[in-house]
């Protein structure tokens, strides 16, 4: 612009005013920045989803380690080990051989001792046997004379207001200090807590056993603690102590009830005495183990009369039992043997069991020994999840996860010099941040990050054996009563998504594509200009409206008229075909004259007639195929699978009949029909059609009889028990969303095939139908394909319709009449409740990422194909 010479030869001095130039530059900067920023922000979404989901697959790691010496001179006997809720402060209960027990609190991050108190008095010092429940203050002690009682041992925590803090005290987060015999802790969340060392017995001892108590267990039930003790002679006592406050007198009434089990004859138990006793956490099972590995399970739901349910071998092989630990939740036990192997046992409901309660103890998981076989010396379960730790005689400590049978961490306590000998006690802090191991001389502590042990690629997509399930399953269950073992199996959701997509597309695609063919090839333009916006209007209906109509209005109606709806799928297309054949019977002149009204005739007369025909035929069909009761048949009340097979095979048989007609009958007819009158040709054509339907029916019936004779039932596959909100309802609701989408794009693709192709085809003598099928559709094939892909993308991610019409049960079966849950529905219902940063939250983000990726791929493929179609149709 600034060049002086112009082609006229005159030079014209031109300057751009500075504010114009400034404005231009500013606009360019703002638009470029804003534009790129906006696009980047939108694209960043995928990155953010990935960033939230990825930490799921992080592996566990050790963050810090230290050790706290217990005594410099003599080895002490460590009886119990634990920590407070946060894991910042640990405690250890130890004693010398003389019995001067000491409860010591120490800082786990530095190993510094904070405070300690002696055990003298209170009945704890004399105990010969002690069991603590991790994560709770609950404990039980047994004595040499056969007495035992519940106790409270550990750190009691209580939040302190900032105002109540001693003046001038300033602690860094994570720091702890001793003040007047208690520990003041500034926890990670910024609050101060006062921790008090507790060691006391809480009830009078029970004296039902006479010999020395060798093992004891306790669990907290709603009414009070439940205790079980085993004495040296093999006698067992279970006892529950329940306290009830009398509302009138305010007096506390304590009732004790229980039962004593006599020692089992040694012969029956492989000549080895009972060594361990364990209660299930729910307090309904009691397990007694012998050293050799034989175990007995008692049902103690009624505490007065324990019943022996079964005996099982808890340590198959030569090794004996070294340790037994109850895992968090349910009734799972971890049994470690002297060779270092650990097995997880569940009481699982199996059909072939001799136990009266139908349960059987099964080895659900097995962990091999660490490196070399060495007896397990200590074991402890996490109080919050199915995580547990084991230590063996070589001084190796492993952190294991029972649900997925994975080893998260392996540390060598002796090798790294933190401990002098094999660990005798272990503990995991409730928040699973700190791991403690003690030998007689010191306590080693590791700060660790367990990452997300409940999730792994294998557990997301593979089958996992969860407690209470008889075998490995794909399961999605994140809330509810079995949340102690969250089930993050993605497959049911992915399956549900695929099922919803499949059935919706199977219903919507034919309608949309056929409708697009008609509207682009046969419909008069003045009709089309009105009908197309009407269908496009359907696209803007909110999906919540569709979900409401499908789930609340349509579902009960279909349930009531099920047979009519099922019949309609067959009868309505047949009515249309029949109508066309009858139409051909009319004189050609009339047909041409009424051609303009053909669509109206189809829409307003034949279609309703088809509906009426379905209404009329349905009861007949139901009586003939399903003994008059389709619902009953679906529920399996009638033995024969014949009816279902006929229905399922009829479309297939029709295709066979159609092919036969097209390959054999039509060419033959063509040769024969030279010179026939149009009327005669139409009559023959009608007869062929009717014969074709009859043949199809016969083929379907024959195949169905054959399959039925083979005892293959149609139920269990596509058919199954009818649930009100099911795949068929979803397919219907979703079709409102997909049909307009596919229709619009397909119609555009078909209409934009160059007119000269069509003209050439018609000019060469092809009928409009032949032109549409052989010329237009191949030319628009990629456009049609991209239409279907975009419809698919919508179906995959649709949320409200499946949420409201699919029943939200994460099942995996193909039944058309059963519900399911999709990824999107799980996101919508569970994400608001998932705690930020938890495994559940991240798994749901993974679901979002999966949906994002699925639709992104589908749409990109569609877009690229559409682009190619545009180019190729341009070239035509």
């Amino acid at each position, binding site marked *: 612009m600034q060049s002086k010479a112009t082609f006229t030869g005159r030079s014209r001095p031109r300057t751009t005013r500075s504010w114009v130039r400034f404005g231009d530059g500013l606009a*360019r900067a703002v638009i470029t920045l804003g534009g790129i920023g906006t696009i980047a922000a939108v694209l960043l979404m995928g990155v953010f*989803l990935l960033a939230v989901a990825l930490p799921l697959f992080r592996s566990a790691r050790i963050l810090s380690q230290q050790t706290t010496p217990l005594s410099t001179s003599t080895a002490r006997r460590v009886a119990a080990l634990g920590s407070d809720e946060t894991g910042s402060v640990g405690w250890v209960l130890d004693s010398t051989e003389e019995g001067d027990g000491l409860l010591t609190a120490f800082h786990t991050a530095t190993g510094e001792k904070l405070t300690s108190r002696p055990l003298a008095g209170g009945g704890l010092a004399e105990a010969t046997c002690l069991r603590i429940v991790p994560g709770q203050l609950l404990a039980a002690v047994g004595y040499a004379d056969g007495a035992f009682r519940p106790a409270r041992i550990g750190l009691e925590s209580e939040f302190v207001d900032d105002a109540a803090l001693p003046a001038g005290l300033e602690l860094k987060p994570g720091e702890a200090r001793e003040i007047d015999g208690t520990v003041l802790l500034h926890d990670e969340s910024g609050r101060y807590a006062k921790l008090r060392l507790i060691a006391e017995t809480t009830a009078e001892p029970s004296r039902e056993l006479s010999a020395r108590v060798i093992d004891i267990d306790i669990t907290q039930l709603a009414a009070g603690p439940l205790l079980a003790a085993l004495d040296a002679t093999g006698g067992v006592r279970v006892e529950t102590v329940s306290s009830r406050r009398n509302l009138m007198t305010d007096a506390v009434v304590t009732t004790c009830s229980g039962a004593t089990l006599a020692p089992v004859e040694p012969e029956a138990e492989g000549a080895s005495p009972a060594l361990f006793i364990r209660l299930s956490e729910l307090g309904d099972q009691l397990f007694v183990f012998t050293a050799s590995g034989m175990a007995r399970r008692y049902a103690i739901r009624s505490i007065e009369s324990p019943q022996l349910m079964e005996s099982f071998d808890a340590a198959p092989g030569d090794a004996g039992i070294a340790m037994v630990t109850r895992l968090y939740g349910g009734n799972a036990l971890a049994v470690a043997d002297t060779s270092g192997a650990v097995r997880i046992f569940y009481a699982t409901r199996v059909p072939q069991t001799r136990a009266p309660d139908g349960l059987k103890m099964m080895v659900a998981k097995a962990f091999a020994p660490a490196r070399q076989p060495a007896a397990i010396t200590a074991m402890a379960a996490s109080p919050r999840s199915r995580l547990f730790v084991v230590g063996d005689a070589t001084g190796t400590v492993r952190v294991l996860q029972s649900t997925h049978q994975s080893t998260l961490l392996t540390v060598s306590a002796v090798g790294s010099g933190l401990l002098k000998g094999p660990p005798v006690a272990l503990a995991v802090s409730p928040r699973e941040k700190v791991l403690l191991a003690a030998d007689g001389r010191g306590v080693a502590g590791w700060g660790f990050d367990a990452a997300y042990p409940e999730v792994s690629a294998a557990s997301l997509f593979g089958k996992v054996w969860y407690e209470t399930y008889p075998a490995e399953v794909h399961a999605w269950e994140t809330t509810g009563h079995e949340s102690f073992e969250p089930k993050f199996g993605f497959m049911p959701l992915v399956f549900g998504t695929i099922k919803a997509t499949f059935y919706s597309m199977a219903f919507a695609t034919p309608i949309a594509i056929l409708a697009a063919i008609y509207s682009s090839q046969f419909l008069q333009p003045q009709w089309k200009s009105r009908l197309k916006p009407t269908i496009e209007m359907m696209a803007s209906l*909110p999906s919540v409206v569709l979900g409401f109509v499908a789930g609340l209005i349509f579902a009960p109606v279909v349930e009531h008229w099920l047979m009519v709806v099922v019949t309609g799928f067959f009868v309505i297309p047949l009515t249309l075909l029949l109508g066309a054949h009858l139409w051909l019977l009319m004189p050609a002149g009339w047909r041409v004259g009424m051609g303009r009204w053909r*669509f109206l005739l189809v829409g307003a007369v034949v279609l309703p007639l088809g509906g009426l025909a379905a209404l009329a035929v349905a009861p007949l069909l139901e009586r003939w195929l399903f003994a008059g009761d389709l619902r009953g048949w679906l529920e399996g009340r009638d033995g024969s699978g014949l009816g279902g097979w006929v229905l399922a095979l009829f479309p297939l048989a029709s295709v066979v009949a159609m092919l036969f007609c*097209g390959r054999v009958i039509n060419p033959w007819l063509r040769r024969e029909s030279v010179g026939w009158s149009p009327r005669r040709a139409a009559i023959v054509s009608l007869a062929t059609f009717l014969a074709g339907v009859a043949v199809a029916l016969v083929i379907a019936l024959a195949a169905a009889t054959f399959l039925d004779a083979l005892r293959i039932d149609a139920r269990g596959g596509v058919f199954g028990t009818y649930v009100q909100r099911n795949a068929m309802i979803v397919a219907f609701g979703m079709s409102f969303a997909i049909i307009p989408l596919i229709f619009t794009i397909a119609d555009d693709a078909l209409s934009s095939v160059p007119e000269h192709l069509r003209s050439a085809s018609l000019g060469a003598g092809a009928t409009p139908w032949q032109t549409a*099928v052989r010329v237009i559709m191949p030319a628009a094939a990629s456009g049609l394909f991209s239409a279907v892909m975009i419809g698919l*993308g919508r179906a995959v991610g649709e949320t409200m319709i499946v949420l409201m019409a699919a029943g939200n049960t994460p099942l995996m079966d193909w039944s058309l009449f059963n519900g399911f849950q999709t990824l*999107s529905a799980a996101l919508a219902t569970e994400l608001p409740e998932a705690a930020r940063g938890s495994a559940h939250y991240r798994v749901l983000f993974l679901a979002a990422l999966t949906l994002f990726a699925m639709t992104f791929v589908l749409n990109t493929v569609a877009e690229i194909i559409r682009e190619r179609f545009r180019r190729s149709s341009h070239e035509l």
Partner: protein
Amino acid sequence: MSSERQRPRRLRSAHSNLSAHGEPWVWLTAGSLALAIAMITGLLCFIAIRGAATFWPVPLELVELADGRKVLGEVTDRQMAVQAGRETPEQAARRLVRTANFEFTGNHYEWIDESAITATTLPEWATAVDRLEGGRFHGFPRRLMHGEEVVAAGAEGVWEEFERIHPAARERYRAARWVDKHERGVLQRRLRAARLDVVQAGLSSGLESRQHTESVKRESEVVAAVELEEKVLDQRTASLRAQNAGWGVEFETPGGEKTILPLDSIVRAWQPNRLSLGGKAQLYGARWGEFLADDPREANSAGGVFPAIWGTIAMTLIMAVFVAPFGVLAALYLREYATRGPVTAAVRIAINNLAGVPSIVYGAFGLGFFCYFLGAGIDGVFFRASLIADNQPTFGTGGLLWASLTLALLTLPVVIVATEEALSAVPNSMREGSYACGASKWQTIRRIVLPRALPGIMTGLILAMARGAGEVAPLMLVGVKKIALDLPIDGTFPFIHPEREFMHLAYLIYDVGFQSPNSEAAKPMVFTITFLLVAIIALLNLTAIWIRSRLQRRYVAQQF
């Protein structure tokens, strides 16, 4: 069809070969199109009819049953049911009667077999009562009571008196409620603000500082002032309530039970069997008025949906405010500034794709990024006091702002694509003409391109708003609440409250239809809400279509 490949060439006669015309298949395609049309028109008509009919007063039928029971209610459905009994399935007619009177009948609706009915009458004085709580009531007015005193007796007398005093009683009730809800709410907010000031002062300048002591003093002043005002309000509400106390209408149910409904708990009462057409129309209008302007009652299954309408409007408008400039900027950049190449093509495909990403994914992103990341960050910097004192996030949870932003992201591709199309529809000759006159690029865009493209951009924006107004899946994650009577935009400073959770029409459909304890009774309400929502969205779409057609006409006229 495929057999035609083997057609002997000598056959020229068209009429003899019917399969070439494929008439049956054409009929099948026509049938599909007709089915699609029937589905959409059927659905729209169904929603329109059911939605519009909800508030039309229906006659109350007194149905006497063979077992001597009497039921008074609206007949809402009739059905031919197949009786159980597998050997001889027989058709039996039955009707669904809205019996109301939940406290006596234990349900709101009842299926009654026609065969069990001995007589059906339309009693003149059968009265339908909309109550504040407990659902609909059907009965006959007997006496008008004031405490123990009988003010009027007999249906006619009661009704005359009722119509005289009821509006005033309702007015007093509403006034008292207004005080409770709004004026007390203002006081509570003042208290909270003062309390948070104290915490904030303690946080920023330390517990011993002058600011802290001053704020403590201020707080005590506020507390004292608020207490005084509370007393005044207490007196006002107490006097309003005292005037209403004791007034009640005694009704007799068809079953013979007598019950007194407090006057101010009666929202509306009418005798449908007595009403003339004009009266019915008036009642219909009044009930629509209540629906559009009032707060919901009874877990959203009765009353109005004003907060939801307001929430929907506020959310959609704020969304439009966000989406318009950014969408236009991005489209301008792509169309006018970016150099054409594989990168822009890829970006364009990516944006087209984003229009197909499921809305729930945007919701998850909104929750994770806006609420938990941005919001928590904002809380940590600006709203620590609230976080510490009440343990309550301000922006760290769902709210109007985050919902609007999430939906803005969701609709951004729609606006970008529409704007791009509008920009590319502006003929290049116009741009070149502008350049030839010496205009700079920005001047050309501002004066020539944007004005021509504006209708197209508006169309895109309106379509985006239509999509945003109907989208509910992402909102469930980022701030929509079942009940949020505090409006996100109201008359108290600072007027727009971007952190507040809000109600939304589309969510209300899901909530009332699926989460309501009594879904049958809530169904008419859901239909009305659906009708309203579909009407709003159809209106937006029609506006877009209208603008588009105007735009097309203008271009025809202005072509060079």
